[in-house]
Structure formats: structure tokens, C-alpha cells
């Protein structure tokens, strides 16, 4: 299998910006809406080349969600852009009624998710959004791992029909997947094959999982790394097949321990094939100001925390 390394770093939001611009060229029905964060969301290229299909909403996220829902009537495919906090918590009821329950083809695109937006602090660091969005019936939830995959996910959403949430981030991050690596919504991406433990990760933490895997290999532990870029619909088969082989799992996400990827995996295993699970996630607390690296370390989301979780789960597996 491929060895994952990187030569370049870029923010995942830029992958969204490029993907949206490509979609704009391909599909005249794609429209963009933004709530006074065009630069932060990297929507400027789309705005520049398709001004008649770009709508500045001002600082009014609830209105933006409603307008997006309405624009689908008559065949437009709206992509809304704002920070993850204001894309979800701020407008949950609007999304619930006007988009999800009404089955509208709106793509909710959310940047600055998780701790790694850094210095702005906890008011902006949403760590509950995956949980909120995956609880909505019919909502597709995608959390890509790097610049290239965010671009591919954005383009895939142009073809996908139905409400969807796309979560990405602010910091410069290793680009470790190939620009043409296959990406299919709902299909887990096995990055590294292994036999002792399965590490399930999403978003930025896929890279941390890959780093952890290299160190585990040095210690003679064979870890399988699976990128669950689509939280919903969840690739249940891939999860069960892997854990059937390895017998235990570690989940990694830049999200609360409640409601996110860890809960998804634990639910599948508890229902269909009980196995020990350890979770690398924020432990029921708010974040704070700091650099992304400092924050990932302080809140226990680094490669060293993944290794610790692997050691723990392996011990539990043996006992079992």
C-alpha cells in the first residue's frame, strides 16, 4: 500500500474554494451564498467568475439557510458558506425545518470547525457540529481529511442530491492524499492495512492517525487506518469487516467525545459485533485560544494520544 507523506501544506478550506469554483464552471445551477466571510471561506474565485450566481447575505445566517432552501425550488444547487459554528448551532432549527425535513438540495459548507481555528477561542471552536448534523434524518455529513480530499468532496456534492453538511478547517495542514485518489460519498477509505487494531479517523486527525501508525509499526504493532470521511451515511460494512479482523478500535476526531465519529463506530460495534473501543476526542469541554498545535496537544488529539489509546485498547482486547 501507499506510504503517506507530504511535501506541501494547505488549508482544507482552500480545497473547498477550488472545488466550488470548478463546480461553478461545470454546472450553471450551482449558486454560492455567504454571510460576510467570503475570504475566510475561500469563495472569492467563485464570486469573481460567477457574480450573478453569488449572493452576499450579510451577517444573517438564519436568513441564508432559508434563502438556500428556497433557491432549490426551480433547480438551483446552493452552497452556503460560513464558519462551522454559525453553519450549525446558530441555525439548527432553520436547517431542520426548511432544509432537512423539507428534503432540500442544499450544501452547507462549514469552515473553521474544531479546535484548530486557534486563537479566536471557544466562541468559534464548535466541537458539537458533527453530532448535531448527523442526528438530522436524511442529512449527509462529510468530514474530509486534507486539501485534495476537500476539493474532491466539494465536487462530489455537486452531483449528490439531498441536504448535506461539509466540514472543513482553517489551519495549514499536510496534503497527503493524491489529487486523483478515488472519493465516493459513503465509502470509507482504507489508508493503511493492518491486523492488530483499527484506527478510524476523520478530518485533520487522519494525518495524526497516519503518524501514529508509523510509530506503532516501529514497535511491532500493526494498525489499520481507515478514513471515515463520510460520517453519514456511515460505511457500516467497512467498519465491521475491519474490526472483525483486528478485534478492537480507536476513533480519532476533532470533536466532542459525545455525538461524533466515536459514537458512530461504538454504536455499530455494540449492535453488530461488540469489541473494545477507545476514543480520541475532546473530553466534554470547551476549547480556548492558542495555536492549532498547542490546542491539539492540550486537548489530547495528538499522535501520542492515539498511540496511548491503541495501547489501552490492545490491553482490553487481550483481557477479553
Amino acid at each position, binding site marked *: 500500500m501507499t506510504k503517506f507523506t507530504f511535501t506541501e501544506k494547505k488549508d482544507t478550506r482552500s480545497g473547498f474554494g477550488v472545488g466550488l469554483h470548478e463546480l461553478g464552471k461545470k454546472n450553471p445551477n450551482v*449558486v454560492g451564498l455567504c454571510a460576510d466571510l467570503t475570504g475566510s471561506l475561500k469563495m472569492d474565485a467563485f464570486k469573481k467568475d460567477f457574480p*450573478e*450566481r453569488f*449572493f452576499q*447575505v*450579510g451577517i*444573517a445566517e*438564519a*436568513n*441564508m*439557510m*432559508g*434563502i*438556500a*432552501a*428556497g*433557491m*432549490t*425550488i*426551480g*433547480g*438551483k444547487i*446552493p452552497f452556503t458558506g460560513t464558519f462551522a459554528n454559525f453553519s450549525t448551532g446558530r441555525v439548527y*432549527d*432553520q436547517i*431542520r*425545518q*426548511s432544509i432537512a*425535513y*423539507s*428534503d*432540500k438540495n442544499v450544501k452547507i459548507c462549514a469552515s473553521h470547525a474544531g479546535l484548530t481555528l486557534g486563537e479566536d477561542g471557544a466562541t468559534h471552536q464548535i466541537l458539537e457540529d458533527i453530532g448535531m448534523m448527523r442526528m438530522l434524518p436524511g442529512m449527509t455529513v462529510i468530514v474530509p481529511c486534507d486539501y485534495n480530499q476537500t476539493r474532491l468532496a466539494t465536487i462530489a456534492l455537486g452531483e449528490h442530491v439531498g441536504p448535506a453538511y461539509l466540514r472543513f478547517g482553517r489551519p495549514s495542514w499536510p496534503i497527503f492524499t493524491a489529487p486523483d485518489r478515488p472519493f465516493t460519498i459513503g465509502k470509507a477509505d482504507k489508508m493503511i492495512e493492518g491486523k492488530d487494531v483499527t484506527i478510524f479517523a476523520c478530518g485533520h486527525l487522519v494525518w495524526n492517525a497516519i503518524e501514529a501508525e508509523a510509530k506503532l509499526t516501529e514497535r511491532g504493532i500493526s494498525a489499520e487506518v481507515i478514513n471515515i470521511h463520510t460520517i453519514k451515511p456511515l460505511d457500516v460494512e467497512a467498519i465491521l469487516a475491519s474490526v472483525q479482523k483486528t478485534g478492537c478500535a480507536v476513533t480519532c476526531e476533532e470533536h466532542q467525545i459525545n455525538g461524533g465519529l466515536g459514537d458512530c463506530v461504538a454504536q455499530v460495534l455494540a449492535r453488530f459485533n461488540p469489541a473494545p473501543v477507545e476514543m480520541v476526542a475532546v473530553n466534554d469541554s470547551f476549547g480556548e485560544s492558542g495555536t492549532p498545535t498547542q490546542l491539539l496537544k492540550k486537548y489530547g488529539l495528538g499522535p501520542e494520544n492515539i498511540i496511548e489509546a491503541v495501547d489501552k485498547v490492545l490491553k482490553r482486547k487481550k483481557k477479553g
Partner: protein
Amino acid sequence: MSQQPDFDRLKKLASQIRRDIVRMVHACQSGHPGGSLGCTEYFVALYFHIMKHDPKFNMDGKGEDLCFLSNGHISPVWYATLARAGYFDPKELSTFRFINSRLQGHPATHEHLPGIRVASGSLGQGLSVSIGAAQTKKLNNDDRFVYVLMGDGEQQEGQVWEAAMYAPHHKIDNLIATIDVNGQQIDGPTEKIMSLLDLKAKWEAFGWIVQAFDGNKIEEVVKGLENAQKLAKKGKPVMNLMKTEMGYGVDYMMGSHKWHGVAPNDEELKKALAQLPETLGDY
């Protein structure tokens, strides 16, 4: 439509739809008769004279006028109107709010009821949605109108004012919005619960063209909506302040907020029906 309306027919429709409303809420012993009865002329005027629309419903409604109901709790009047306009068999009105019905307590698309394009019930969202639909009509070079109705109590929702700001800024001039100004909401008169003060001045200050008319005189409603079409397409959205009486047409339901969301009992139903001639046959 420009031909002279048959007001006699419209009045007969209104009477029948009012019967439908009180019978629907009576049957399930829940729902919102007050606002429904107050807005009956509005729906009759829209669906039987003003709008170009096709009861063979399709979601996109290209080349048609679109109707949205933001104050979704007055679903009985919309359902009864849609049924009488041929969107579905009036017999289905008997399923309102019962299990396995397409006629949900509040309007929904989930059960694919013809005529409904978005769910509503959580107040404050419909104006935004209708702005989006109007914007798509512009992008599609579709010159038909989008109509949306809101409640006056609903004006207390902040999102309404986000939408109020957006529409003139983006020159959404194919949008004809209406507020049901009945002066009532659940807990009492709007001016006691949370004063709306001068709605005309407020909407004008936000950049809308505002007019007012009597919402319980069918002639006035038709005239008002026809005039709204003339005011539209000039760079600004249009707002109708439609004065109505909650519970209009049933004497004991009028004059207070009491019948906002209460169903009549058997006795009360009889009293109500005695005041509303059956004109097209009950479902």
C-alpha cells in the same frame, strides 16, 4: 389574471372553505381555526383568481406563481383551499392531523402533499425561503410571482428582519409578501405581548413598498393583490398589511385571541356551521 372576478363564486368558495376548516379542527380536536378563518379570503383570492398555478403539482413550479405559508399553523385554510382548487380530493381533508395522513399538523413536503413546497410551523422562516424561490425565478428568467403570508405575532422573530433587509438590497421585486394583521397571538393581543408599533413605517424603512387593505372583504383582497402586482417589478419587494379579524365568519370565535388554537366541541361546531352556508358540498 385580468378578467373581472366572479365575486359571487369567490364568496361561495370562502363559505365552503370556512366550513371545511371548522369541521377539520373539530374532527381531530386540535389545530388552529382562528387565523385560518381570518385568512380565508386571502387564499380564495390567490388560488381562484390571482395566481397562475397548476393543480397537477410539481415542486419546481417553473412558469407558475408560487404560494408560501410562513405561519404554518393556519394549515387548515391552505389545505382546504388546495383541495377545493383540485390539488387533491376534498375527502382527504377528513384525515387532517390523524396518523398516516398527508395533511400534517403543520405543512410539510415529507408526505408529498401536492401544493406544499417547504415545511413551516417553526415561525420566522417563510420569508427567507420565499426570497430564495423568487431569486431562483429571476435566475431562470421566469417572470411569475412568489407570494408569502406571515402572521403579525410572527414579526417578533428576528429572522423576519434579516429577510426584510435582504430583499430590497438584492432587488427581489417579484415577491409579494403579506402580513395577517389580526392583532392577536397565542398569549393575547400583539400590542400587549410585544408591541409591533408602526409596521408600515418599519417595512418602509427597510426599503419595501407597503400597502394596506381589508383582508376579510373579498373585493378588497382581490383589488389589493392586483394592485400589488402593479407595484411589483419596479426594483423593490411589496408588503401587504392585511387587516383581518381572527375567527372571521364564526361570531363566537371573533374579537379575541381565544380561538387561535382551540377546536370547537360538538355544540360549538353546530353553532359555527349554522353561520356558514354549505355551497359546494361538504367533504
